[in-house]
Structure formats: C-alpha cells, structure tokens
C-alpha cells in the first residue's frame, strides 16, 4: 500500500509541474511526474519521513536551477514594461503640472 504521504507528495508535484518551462512540460510532463513518483516511493521505503523531506529538498533545488531562471526570463519583459510605463507616466505628469 502506498503511504498517504507519498500519495499527497505525488499529487502536489503534479500540480507544481506547471512551474517548469512549457517546452519541458510539453515533451516530458508525464516523465517528470513518473520519475518524481519513483523517487518519493524509494525515499519513503528507505528513510520514511526523512526520505520524503530529502526528496522535496531535492525538488526545491531543482526548481531553483530549472524553473526559476525560466520564470525570471518570462517575467522580465512585463515587469520592465510596467516599470518603464510608471516612470514615463510620472515624468509626463510632472511635465504637465510642474508645481505638484
């Protein structure tokens, strides 16, 4: 019987797969989940809760290495656009009404 902790972990990972880059998910979405499932099952069998914690720490490091740079690149353009727009809007308002 698969432990509840393992089932919850797999369920959580399935939801968090969305954090990985789109092209990786499209090509290897099922494989990512399958590898994590095997990893977490082995971790539970070998070290119970410590194993589960270790496997999740490994996944967090993985997100930092793979998902975060991609997310940062995706957010860079909209964030920069918002910052430039705000600065431009402030400068425009100052030019229209310099006393304020």
């Amino acid at each position, binding site marked *: 019987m698969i432990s509840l902790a393992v089932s919850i972990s797999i369920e959580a990972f399935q939801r968090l797969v969305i954090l*990985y880059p789109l092209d990786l998910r499209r090509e290897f979405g099922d494989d990512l989940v399958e590898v994590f499932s095997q990893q977490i099952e082995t971790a539970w069998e070998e070290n119970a809760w410590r194993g589960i914690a270790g496997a999740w720490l490994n996944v967090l490091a993985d997100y930092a*290495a793979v998902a975060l740079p991609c997310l940062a690149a995706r957010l860079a353009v909209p964030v920069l656009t918002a910052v430039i727009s705000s600065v431009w809007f402030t400068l425009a308002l100052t030019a229209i009404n310099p006393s304020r």
Partner: protein
Amino acid sequence: MLVKPKSKLDLPDEIRALQPLTPAVFYTLFALANGEKHGYAIMQSVKGLSNDSVRMGPGTLYTTIQRLLKIDLIEELTPRKRAEESERRRRVYRLSGLGRRVFDEEVSRLGAVLRQVRLNKLIPRGSEAR
C-alpha cells in the same frame, strides 16, 4: 611541467561549445555509456557514479535529456527495440555514436588533468587518485 593534450577527435562546433561538460551532462553520458536506461535509472546511476555528489532532480534530468537529444548525443529507443515488455510505457535512452565520442574525449581530458596533477605531485593525501 605542462603537456598540451592533443585531441584526435573532430567534433562539430556546437558540441565543442559544450566542453568542458557540466556535471549533469557528463554523468548522464557516463550513466548511458554503461547501457540503455530510462529516466529514473539514469538518475540513480548518476547518484552512484558520482558518489552521491551529483543529485539530479526531475527537471534537471529532463532538461539535460532534452538538450542531449537535440544535439544527437543520445537517442530514444523506439518501443519495439526495448528489452522488456514492462518497460514499454517508459522512454528509454541510449548513447549515440557521437555521444560516445564526446564522452571518450571528456574522459581523456580528465585523464590528462589527472596526469598533470600527478606529475606536479599535487594529489591530496588519502585521495583515491594516488
């Protein structure tokens, strides 16, 4: 004393740009040099071959596989070529001819580094490389 390592292999520029290989790429090729494997087996093999110093998460593993497939260093086996019936669902990978050449060249490069370290008597005490 320095000895300039000579490369006898003529590799494409896009492969040359990868060298020296990152630990993830090197150990993935190393794992597959021992025979065809599916994703989880590659992950376990990398852990063992690196004495637990390289731990790949699912994303790192498949990003590496995706990259190596793209530049033809590894290839995916078609289902009918897979050895076991139970493995049909899983994707199985193996080293390509080019992948084997790149792996061999990296091993030669590391060997040359080790020779230099030995020549200069710089191997740490207690090291397995002594």
